[in-house]
């Protein structure tokens, strides 16, 4: 059999870290693996490492970039079911435990990144949480409380410039809110109200360029396709989702967002990408997802984790044309 050198004219390089040259085959001496650098041919979801704590209604560091720096926290674990304070950090292949939240809770929102995360709100009727906690990569400390306690809210932005919007306050049927609040690293102050009050929504972006989409406007019951964009003081209507839904996940930025799964009448795996003005359908997840959490600073690389039925699953989204490292099986 011909050797690689005989075919290519050169040998496979030994590298201590991954190459970034598209098309290169190399041996990573650190990982002890042969690898290939390829550009993804089309938008696609892949399975990622499983979380240790299966849960739904969890929070995530919404702006954690890429696949290799995710942060998941809180939620409702089970069975048999209990509110969780567990935090887990993702490195692109597996999850490891981080410091526990000070206040265990479900239906919370998250912002920031893995080493500077923000958790806020949450709760289950009749309790709604206003607590905010800040993560430094190892432990959580208390921050300023939300002015409007609520769960099932949207969250985005960074630890020192967070954004909370919409959600449900105490009563059932849900007292949906359009309240928006901005965090400065110490305290929350009121921002402009959402045009469409809703809960079970998703979002992305930063405090001065946020985006909210989907959610439940009950009453009337059911999902909305409404998208709104925040400029740091007020919300304006954006392009509608192609598929109205609630209990979805979201990530990305105001001009590069991703809507993930949700309930469209039943549990769905449908995903859409936003370009700053309109949504277009992209690859569906490998399995349906509701009550999950998403992260990603752009829609080119995103994570979705957990979900209904106490899922441990993680899925990784990659947009077409993204340079990726693939392991090569050598037998």
């Amino acid at each position, binding site marked *: 059999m011909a050797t690689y050198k005989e075919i290519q004219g050169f040998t496979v390089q030994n590298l201590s870290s991954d190459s970034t040259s598209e098309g290169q085959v190399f041996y990573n001496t650190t990982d002890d693996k042969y690898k290939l650098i390829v550009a*993804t*041919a*089309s*938008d*696609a*979801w*892949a*399975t*990622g*490492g*499983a979380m240790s704590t299966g849960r739904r209604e969890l929070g995530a560091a919404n702006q954690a970039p890429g696949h290799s720096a995710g942060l998941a926290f809180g939620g409702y674990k089970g069975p048999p079911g209990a509110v969780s304070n567990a935090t887990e950090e993702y490195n692109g*292949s*597996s999850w490891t435990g981080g410091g526990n939240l000070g206040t265990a809770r479900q239906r919370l929102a998250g912002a920031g990144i893995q080493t500077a995360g923000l958790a806020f709100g949450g709760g*289950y*009727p009749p309790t709604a949480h206003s607590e905010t906690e800040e993560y430094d990569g190892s432990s959580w400390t208390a921050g300023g409380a939300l002015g409007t306690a609520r769960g099932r809210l949207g969250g985005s932005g960074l630890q020192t410039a967070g954004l909370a919007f919409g959600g449900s306050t105490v009563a*059932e*049927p849900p007292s949906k809110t359009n309240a928006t609040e901005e965090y400065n690293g110490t305290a929350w102050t009121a921002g402009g109200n959402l045009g469409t009050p809703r809960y079970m929504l998703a979002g992305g972006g930063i405090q001065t360029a946020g985006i909210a989409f989907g959610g*439940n406007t*009950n009453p009337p*019951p059911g999902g909305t396709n409404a998208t709104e964009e925040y400029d740091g003081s007020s919300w304006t209507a954006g392009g509608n989702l192609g598929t109205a839904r*609630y*209990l979805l996940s979201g990530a990305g930025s105001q001009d590069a967002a991703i809507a993930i799964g949700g*309930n469209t009448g*039943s*549990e769905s*795996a449908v995903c859409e990408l936003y370009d700053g003005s309109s949504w277009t359908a992209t*690859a*569906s997840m*490998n*399995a*349906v997802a*509701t*009550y999950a959490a998403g992260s990603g600073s752009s829609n080119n690389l995103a994570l979705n984790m957990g979900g*209904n*039925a106490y899922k441990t*699953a*993680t899925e*990784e989204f*990659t947009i077409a044309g993204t340079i*990726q490292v*693939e*392991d090569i099986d050598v037998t």
Partner: protein
Amino acid sequence: MATKTYIVAENWGKGFITHRDSASFSPCGFPANVWQVPANNRDANLWIAKVLGTVKTKAEAQALVDTEITAAQAEYDALTEEQKANHPGSRPTDITLEE
């Protein structure tokens, strides 16, 4: 002629479905670790071998999915009305697998 193949395989996480797998043949997951892939598809067949999938007939796969969903529906139905109101959209719906 069947256009879908059903298998049972446990999702072990990273690498179970790669981006290339997903883009190539769009595996679709269902309850009970049931996965649907296109029939007579080379890449899908290679993936089945990789994940050590056990091929099931559509009827067998449907029965596995039904059992899991029925159990989950019973769990949901046992909730109080207040709890149900707090979990809209979480009662698992019946799934009919394609031929």
